[in-house]
């Protein structure tokens, strides 16, 4: 184990993105990273199934992306920074994604913030 990270396993609700996670979710993250290219965004908006086919996503990967199941995507190994690109394509803000990770609604999450309007 990486000695720099010893103790992190005791923190609840924390998913470290390490080489094992990276390898496990490489295909999904590559698909999400692809949203930095306008043509990939266009295909996904027009025909999501064709975009999934092109990326060779599994049935479970497709379901999570289709339903924007943020918590499941995170557990599966998606990098937040790749998910962020999916968020932008679907018009979902970071606070809304964070609420999803926490199992809260956006409204519930905003109640815990200092300046809920700063979005």
């Amino acid at each position, binding site marked *: 184990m990486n000695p720099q990270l010893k103790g992190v396993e005791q923190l609840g609700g924390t998913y470290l993105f390490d080489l094992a996670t990276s390898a496990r979710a490489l295909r999904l993250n590559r698909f999400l990273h692809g949203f930095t*290219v306008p043509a990939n965004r266009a295909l996904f908006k027009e025909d999501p199934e064709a975009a999934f086919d092109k990326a060779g996503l599994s049935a479970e990967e497709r379901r999570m992306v289709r339903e924007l199941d943020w918590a499941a995507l995170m557990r599966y190994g998606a990098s937040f920074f790749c998910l962020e690109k999916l968020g932008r394509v679907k018009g979902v803000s970071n606070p809304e994604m964070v609420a999803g990770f926490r199992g809260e609604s956006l409204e519930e999450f905003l109640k815990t*913030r200092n300046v809920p309007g700063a979005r």
Partner: protein
Amino acid sequence: MAKILGGIGTSHVPTIGGAYDRNKQNDPDWAPLFRGYEPVKAWLAQRKPDVLVFFYNDHATTFFFDHYPTFALGVGAEYAIADEGLGRRAVPPLKGHVGLARHMADALVNDEFDISVFQDLPIDHGVHSPLTMFWPPSPDWPGKIVPIEINVLQHPIPTPARCWKLGQAVRRAVLSYPEDLKVVIVGTGGLSHQMNGERAGFNNEKWDRKFLDLIARDPRKLVAMRHADYIRLGGTEGAEEIMWLAMRGALSPRARKIHQNYYLPMTTAMAVALFEEPDAKPAPRKARSARKTRRNGARASA
């Protein structure tokens, strides 16, 4: 010879650039953020650096996990603003200082810091989100940059101590550049935030304020900490604070923090701190020769 005027530590959340792009300076939700950058903007406008050297992290935008560089130095003349899923921000491409960057590549590698290099890759909000707050284009950028990417996304990420040493090596590299350039070092990222899991949304203002104190007063304490400490205290993305350590490592021990701002509206603590080297201010004529003697003495013992 090139000289270092000072340093800036700053958060780089995309919403900082977004607030600038949407002209939110008079919106009460955003005004405290804008106000916090005013002294930094004024200092840069007065000191007029030629180059900002940036320690920043990419966000799986320029680089992907098929090859994620631990440290990468930009040596290009121009960097496009990266498309992060929404198209590009309406700001000009960043201008790179090729001469300094190539010199830094030589100096770092010969100093046994075997950094990888990149040319004309697009750069994401890790650099330009805060940049518009203190060095806005009007219409073009006031100067050039040298970007240094640090991996904080995929563990193992470089240790705090290694980032500190990178900063020191960058200092040696910049100060050995023969051209008379004025350089400011910037470290971007943090402060406390976590963007994954049920712990997402974690912040720790008490730790953030301690970090802002230690980075100026006793950075060695921060250098000695492990990533597990940073993650426990500041959340998984609090690890971005190692870019501040690289920036601080590139300054002299005599650099003083002359301004800071802290604002925590949503999920990320947005902080900025300005450090000034004692030489930066032109001294009055008669004080100058005395100060020069002292400075040379300090250099000889360094």
